[in-house]
């Protein structure tokens, strides 16, 4: 913390909000062990319930939203969050795509509720789990299940000095090649989603010798059709396999959604 610097400007106020989620993306902030104390020196943590009890009133300069909208209460609350924040960032797969819980969007929530709860009448939930941008205007989206903490730090640093955050939009393949990992599709015949998945994870899965499962969601303009044809013809995967691969942590985000619907139709034929 630059304790010797004296600034007359008030510190920017950061707020962190949780909707339907696992808390992992907010935790990524607390996992910045080396930078955390500097960060709280540079900004006021104005609202962050997982970390502190004290809250400051809005408006907030930066709002980070974790989680998807899956209950009537959340669908209301997100509008107030938008009004309270000057710059609103959706962080993580749930907030940017609906997340894993968006699998309900293809199912009967009534049936799901009675599968899990003895008294479905106590449960208040929406039929869909949807990303934040489906409800309010979002200024920036940070992908990943979970977000990459270095990208989160880059985003906050960029916002503090007023520049555009440097977040890659190419595929995981580029990261994988840079690190020199052997291609798991070529060497092991694994169904790797790296060619159509947005970078940001530093090619973790191929680094562990396994196929990318798409937790950063679709890259810009991915050729899902081409990769799908390869999986079906060369790897003898089924349309059902394709549907499942696409419908996971970012399944409700286009073009993964449209492609998974296509493979579902093929599965039924």
């Amino acid at each position, binding site marked *: 913390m630059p304790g010797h610097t004296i600034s007359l400007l008030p510190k920017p106020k950061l707020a962190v909000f949780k909707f339907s989620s696992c*808390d992992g993306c907010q935790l990524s902030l607390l996992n910045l062990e080396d930078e955390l104390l500097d960060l709280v020196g540079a900004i006021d943590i104005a609202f962050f319930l997982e970390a502190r009890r004290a809250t400051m009133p809005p408006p907030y300069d930066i709002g980070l939203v974790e989680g998807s909208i899956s209950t009537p209460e959340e669908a209301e609350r997100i509008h107030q969050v938008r009004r309270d924040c000057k710059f609103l960032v959706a962080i993580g797969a749930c907030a940017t795509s609906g997340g894993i819980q968006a699998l309900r969007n293809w199912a009967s929530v009534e049936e799901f509720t009675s599968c899990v709860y003895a008294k479905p009448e106590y449960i208040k939930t929406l039929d869909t789990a949807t990303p934040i941008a489906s409800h309010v205007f979002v200024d920036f989206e940070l992908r990943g299940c979970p977000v990459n903490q270095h990208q989160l730090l880059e985003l906050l640093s960029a916002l503090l000095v007023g520049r555009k955050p440097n977040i890659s939009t190419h595929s995981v393949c580029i990261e994988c090649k840079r690190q020199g990992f052997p291609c798991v599709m070529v060497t092991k015949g694994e169904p790797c989603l790296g060619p159509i998945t947005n970078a940001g994870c530093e090619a973790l899965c191929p680094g562990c010798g396994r196929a990318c499962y798409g937790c950063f969601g679709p890259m810009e303009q991915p050729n899902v059709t081409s990769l799908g044809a390869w999986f079906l013809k060369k790897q003898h995967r089924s349309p059902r396999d394709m549907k499942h691969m696409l419908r996971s942590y970012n399944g409700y985000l286009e073009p993964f959604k449209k492609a998974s619907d296509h493979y579902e139709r093929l599965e039924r034929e």
Partner: protein
Amino acid sequence: MSGSNENSGTRTIRVGALARVEGEGALHLVMRGDEVERVHLEIYEPPRFFEAFLRGRDYHEVPDITARICGICPIAYQSASCYALEKAMGVFDQTAGDPAIQSLRDLIYCGEWIESHVLHMFMLHLPDFLGYESSITMAADHAPLVKRALRVKKVGNQIVSLLGGRSVHPVGMCVGGFHRAPDESAVAALLPEVRACIDEMTELTLFVAEHVEYPHLERDYEFVALSPEKGYPMNLGRIRSNKGLDLAQEEFGDAIQERHVEHSTALHSVIKGRGSYMVGPLARLNLAADRLHPRAAELLPKVIGLLKQDLPWRNNFLSLPARGLETVHALALAADILESYRRPTKSRVAITSRAGRGAHGTEAPRGICWHTYETHDDGTIKSARIVPPTAQNQITIEEDLAEFARRVVDLPDEEAALKCEHLIRNYDPCISCSVHFLKFRRTRVPLETLGRNAAR
């Protein structure tokens, strides 16, 4: 804020959302004079229906999916899913019997215990004891303490990342073992910092034993934990209690009853015919203190001396030093595993899909996380049931609150709420897990003060 309740003679106190817990919930106390009429720990974390959408997915997808139940303890979900599905696929004896796979499973879990315990102790729980609203304000007065805790927390995350690539939703573990065993050079590089952190954590644990005043709330709990053949509870073993419960892993599901109540999206667990029970660090320490790693075992008498409290500890405020001891244990165990590590030739066993059934619980930082799955013959999931730790502790938390609320009845609303929140944080409630967050609401019937309170 607080305000008059619509019912005449009642008083409702609502205190924002409970902070420094993982997930969303509220506390509702109904009081008549000094007597507590009803305590509800309201958990309204939105349901996400994991058990429903797991049906039809392939068995090998499960550990990655269940990890998403909780960003703080993904390893707990991954390991319970893996062991339960290894049972369903008929390979459990091979994975549990493979020393290389087993030591890597212990190692990554040590990483999660360290990361989760230190996060809870120093960032979420200790501020209550020392009178701060958060570790952020605590850091202003206790910067060296917070920095040392962050150092230990970081090494926990590094251990998880060593095996799983990242600390939140790591990608290394799979049904059958690990996708890849780490390189010996990476293991060797991490060892010195893990060793250094054993000393750091020993001193941090002595600090909380010496400089913290613990509220006194003793109750006669039934402590439930895994009871492995050797070592401290973590991945394997039967499920036992201090009151004679002794179950095979497979029997646990039938031995407990999960109740669905209106004020909670978490299902409440009781042991059939016995009632509420406690899982977590206090349960483990009381049942298995003699199995701690020698580094933690040598620290235990010093901690007991400073606290002037012999085991068993029946006061869950002492979960703070219990977590400290467990963190020293996890660091020392991790150092041993890293030190003797030789990269195994194979890190996973081959699996042929089959129809089967498997049940297994492992010790999440907050207590037993138990899963059971049934599979179809193509390896897809037929049914899934997940019993997370906070749901199991929920009734016990409510019972603690009922006892504790009597002592705080004369305090101003805000102070009373703070004390109750502190008690809840003893359990490190992981509410995203149990829903399956907390707001405080107290309804009072203080006969003489009727109508005096104004909304705050």
